[in-house]
């Protein structure tokens, strides 16, 4: 015989499932009959009435609510694509596509408007390429060190440090690029360019200049401007290094030990094992991390806006100011551009180009992982 208090407890918590099998219900019915036999008070009878119903209703409400929340992410994608397409179509009604693709200048805010997207794209490509040239060797070698050479304690200290680096806001990296790295690089450039006095009999050397009364060796080294793609790209590379390192490390670390042992048994050294066996086995993860890093570099905003400048220059000179696609969107947003005007629509056309570039990279990364993933038991 269950005490009344215990049954009260069960009832109070509504802990009777709507899914409870019929046999349980019958048992409960029996209990109820016994109870009512013992306690003649008819008040207790209602304690047994359907609390599953309220529990079931609550579950349905929660289920629908969670489903609604999950749909918000679809609505976000739809919103992004819808927004970009709508404004981009409006843009192309005023500016023909061929002009967008073939103009060699980007001057939507001037009186003589030109809309050469490749001007902005070349800057984005330039900074991203420099960034990748920094991030891939640094990130990949760090990943190899952490996974293959570092002791467990070292790995446990260094990985969180890299995560700290990954968590630094990009505006901080922008500060670092503009106010620390650029002056530092300028000093190096100036030092290399400084004319070196040489004795007169060395005047057959190239790059020799004659300033009264001595000969000087003057290297034709470029002048680094205050805003430039070089330091923006370098710092951008540092900022995405943790992404490459962390994701590649996961891929390298999960290569089974048996593969390494097999290579050692064939007489390979540690480096040969890593380069010939471990890296190829982890290749899909490594390439995916690099593609994600490229996508991040292309979409990065604050570093390039602060350090690379606001001058739309076509070309790939890393020593002069350039304007990336993201920097242009920031420039227009900071000015007071009226909604519906042509300059306002340009940021959506540029945003659409950016979105398509990153989407292509992301899809390629998914495809690559799916196609080349090695599965080990």
């Amino acid at each position, binding site marked *: 015989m269950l005490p009344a208090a215990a049954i009260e407890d069960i009832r109070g918590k509504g802990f009777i*499932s*709507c899914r409870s099998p019929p046999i349980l219900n019958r048992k409960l019915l029996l209990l109820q009959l016994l109870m009512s036999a013992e306690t003649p008070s008819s008040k207790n009878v209602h304690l047994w009435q359907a609390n599953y119903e309220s529990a079931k209703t609550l579950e349905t409400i929660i289920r629908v609510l969670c489903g609604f929340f999950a749909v*918000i*992410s679809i609505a976000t994608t739809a919103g992004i694509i819808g927004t970009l397409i709508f404004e981009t179509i409006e843009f192309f009604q005023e500016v023909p596509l061929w002009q967008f693709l073939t103009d060699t200048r980007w001057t939507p805010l001037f009186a003589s408007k030109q809309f050469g997207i490749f001007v902005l794209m070349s800057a984005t490509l330039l900074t991203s390429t420099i960034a990748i040239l920094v991030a891939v060797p640094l990130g990949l070698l760090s990943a190899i060190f952490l996974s293959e050479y570092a002791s467990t304690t070292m790995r446990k200290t260094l990985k969180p440090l890299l995560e700290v680096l990954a968590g630094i806001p990009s505006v901080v990296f922008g500060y670092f690029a503009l*106010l620390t790295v650029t002056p530092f690089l300028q000093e190096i450039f100036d030092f290399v360019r400084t004319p070196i006095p040489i004795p007169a009999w060395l005047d057959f050397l190239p790059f020799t200049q004659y300033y009264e009364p001595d000969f000087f060796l003057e290297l034709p080294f470029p002048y680094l401007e205050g805003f430039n793609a070089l330091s923006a790209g370098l710092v951008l590379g540092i900022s995405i290094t943790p992404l490459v390192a962390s994701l590649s490390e996961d891929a390298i670390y999960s290569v089974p030990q048996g593969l390494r042992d097999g290579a050692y048994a064939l007489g390979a050294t540690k480096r*040969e094992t890593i380069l010939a066996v471990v890296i190829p086995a982890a290749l899909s993860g490594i390439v995916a991390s690099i593609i994600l890093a490229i996508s991040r570099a292309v979409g990065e*905003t604050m570093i390039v806006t602060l350090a690379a400048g606001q001058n739309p220059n076509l070309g790939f000179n890393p020593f002069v100011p350039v304007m990336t696609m993201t920097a242009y969107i920031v420039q227009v*947003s900071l000015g007071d551009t009226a909604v519906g005007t042509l300059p306002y629509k340009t940021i959506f056309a540029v945003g659409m180009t950016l979105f398509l570039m990153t989407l292509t990279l992301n899809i390629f990364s998914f495809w690559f992982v799916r196609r080349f993933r090695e599965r080990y038991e």
Partner: protein
Amino acid sequence: MTFESITDAQAESNLVAAEAKFQPNLAGRYRLDAIFKAATIAATTIAIAVLAWLMFDVLISGVGSLDRSFLTSFPSRRPEQAGILSALAGTGWVMFLVAVFSFPIGVGSGLFLEEFSGDNWFARFIEINISNLAGVPSIIYGLLGLTAFVIILGDWTGGRSILTGALTLTLLILPIIIVATREALRAVPDSIRQAGYALGANSWQVIWSHTLPTAFPGILTGVILALSRAIGETAPLITIGALTFIPFLPEGPLDPFTVLPIQIYNWVSRPQKDFHDLAASGIIVLLVVLLVMNSFAIFLRSRFQKAR
């Protein structure tokens, strides 16, 4: 010539010939090994050294102007009077609203994908969608916020307001929270769920009384890390038109605002050295806030791991 007829002398000469062809050159290979190992160490050191350089540089430039009046003053054209009060208030407001919005929505979506829906096309579609959203550059979310919350819903959100900023950042960090929630839920052993069902609970009762409490530290860690991403975001807020000069405190969610990263951006982009130092002070404040949030997340994670 049959196999048996090979004489010892022939076998010997074969071996010598093979050895002459195959030179293990162990010394050279080990030298390359050492160079390779040195390169990996150098790469790691460079990454850490740049981090140290950045911190050192920010500290040197920023610590001088970091005092009580910096924290309690409004921005000003005179560097010696400028402070971050309105930026701090704006960041506080925005982060509070982002937490309020993103926590239920993110955890709810994670629950839906992991606990409620089976492996059907709808769940798979949402899943692909979320991993795509995670790769969209943050400035694109700014364009979405500009159209959706500033222009279309401007009457309700107050245009370029705290609410608009919070909604935009919520959409930005939702994928991170959803992924973290799902991982935390996946780490809950199935036996715990089955024990709940065996007691006669329905699926929501099992989630509420068993699964969620077990997964909660993991979920909270993910939410805090996502919020610390949101706190440093600058580009989307510039795009939706957060102002750079706010000499007053916002009084409600519909007021215009600025946040700490935008204030830092504004100071960095000015030519005067004094403002650069102010930017460094602002960065110190921002990094301290981030450090506190991250340490809390790491603390939660370690406690969670010890408990299991």
